[in-house]
């Protein structure tokens, strides 16, 4: 996975959660665009991202995320924090 960008890795998490190998997401994709993005799927996404990027997301952060862009930014911040 080392060569893949953050967005690509996030997309692979989305694909696995929604069990759709061809799913394409953009920064503006929200729960309204994906029919199966319910509260349970949201949890799966959070937990899947944590595992993929080896970061910990708090309950407050998890509930604050509204679209793919915010997801990616949150992880980017977390990764930067971990690196410094």
């Amino acid at each position, binding site marked *: 996975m080392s060569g893949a960008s953050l967005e690509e890795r996030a997309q692979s998490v989305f694909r696995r*959660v929604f*069990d759709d190998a061809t799913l394409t997401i953009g920064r503006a994709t929200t729960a309204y665009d994906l029919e199966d993005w319910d*509260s349970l799927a949201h949890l*799966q996404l959070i*937990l899947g991202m*944590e*595992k993929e990027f080896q970061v910990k997301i*708090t309950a407050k952060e998890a509930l604050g995320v509204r679209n793919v862009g915010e997801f990616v930014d949150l992880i980017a911040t977390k990764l930067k924090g971990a690196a410094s």
Partner: protein
Amino acid sequence: MGFKELIREARYTDALQMLLEIVKHSEDPNDLIAVSRNISKIPGSFYREQGFLPKKIAVLAGYSCDFITAVTRTYLLQHKIIADFHQTEYGLYEQAIHSRDKQLVSFAPDLCYFCVGSDQLGFLDVSDEIARWRALWQSTSALLSCDIVMNSFEEPLHRVFGNFECKWQPSASHFVRSVNAQLAQLAPGSVHFNDVNFLAGYHGRKNWRDERLYDMAKVPVSYDYLSAYARNLAAVCASAFGRSKKCLVLDLDNTLWGGVVADDGVGGIQIGNDSAGGEAYLRFQSYVRGLKDRGVILAVCSKNAEGLAREPFTARAEMVLKLEDISCFVANWRPKPENLVAISQQLEIGLDSMVFVDDNPMERDYVRQSLPQIEVVELGEDPSTYTATLSRAHYFETVAVTGDDLKRTEQYRGNSLRHELLTTVGNYEDFLKSLEMKACVRPFDLANLSRITQLINKTNQFNVTTKRRTESDVSRIVGNDGFITAFARLSDRFGDHGLVSAFIGEISSGRELRVDTWLMSCRVLKRGLELFLFQEIVRQAIKRQLVCIRGQYIPTAKNQLVEMLFEEMGFSRDSDTPGDGTFWHYDLTDQTTLHTTFHQTLCIERMEQAEG
């Protein structure tokens, strides 16, 4: 090819295989939840054709249970159970029962699972707490008449009193331990535990619970251990539904001891606490011996000269396992799959009841490919890990231990001795006489409920209808006037077989007895016990002034053995009947029929009092 394409082309065998591969190799809940969603894309009829048990499980939710049910469903698939779940609203586990929730009742579950934990405890008075759960069990049984699986309560993560909680009775740790201990003691046979407290300790309490996930979504277990939780729960449910293994088949060299007896000599192999290697094998043997003591049948399957293979058992005092612990010992140079089939025939148990342990990956692979019904244990290279690998796989989960379990090895060893006797006696009737068999037939009673239920759920071959029942189901038939029930015990001069046969007949209008269940353990085949039991049924039926016994043979993949049972017992076949299998009737008013039933040679003596 992907799963979706396989479904589209109706290649269900491959599609199912694909799902099962994921369940076997991935512990990632996201993978397993995806599998769970796909399970129902394969039609139910396909699962039934493949011998899967359809079961309905009601989840009474103290927590948010969606993840748990989804993942548990995937593990039940490994036990050949296709489960349908119904969840109550979060937190309403108690109200749903006491208010007789309509949806719950109409779901008519085969099993109720209480997904509860320490978060549902009151931490005030232990006896009040016990009374509350017992009342819930009783109301559940009364409302739904099914077995119950309930979590044990996990000990708290944070100790207000610190180490002092060990001895301070009002503390939370103390409270939880008392509740667990007392509930375990008071639980009737129809209540089984999913031992979450053990799991939390095993995996480490700190990591077991993800407090953030609990805060966010009321999920009681961290995502990392969700699969461990669900695997454990599935094993308990499967065991309640009678899906456990019966026999452990063991390789010898580098499995039961270190080294190769043919190369290193009987003195050179490693076993015992004088070396690190020997210690690991000792631990493994002790665990296996423990399994044998509780009723798991042991067999040996080794590529060796037989004399040499047996030598360590007698020559090395450090061996925990003895020859008499092994019900069937096979050592030769034939391929292992062939020997495993021979073992299954000799012990008269199905291949799908067997678990195979071998350190050699090639042998494992060979067996897995030739006999997919057999469970093959994926042993690691280090013998220190053998015990952990076998124990965490849950092959031999049980929901009851009966007196018969504890005597099983003797019974199966007796079978081998009897085979030897047959070769020296020659005439079969003389052979049967020489066995000096004694049997008794009695109606179902509560004392034998566990064993009867176990037999109903485990017997595959001598079983005319293969109807499964939980302990609660059977208990409702005990002493019920609408039924004629019977179980049989058999002993002979080689040992006591215990309770080996069961019969349930339902009395219907028109003074007829409909055979609902008739089964017998295969280790007592061809001894006349079926006739012995049937004579008793006929006597009872006449006493109750019935006029006819009706039987139905429902064929399965395994019960061909009893295809002609009704004919052998003097039934006549009905012509042109709808539905599954064949239909038969036995005229209780016909003297010729009765004469043939009661004037056949039986080499079984009546035993007056059933013991145990």
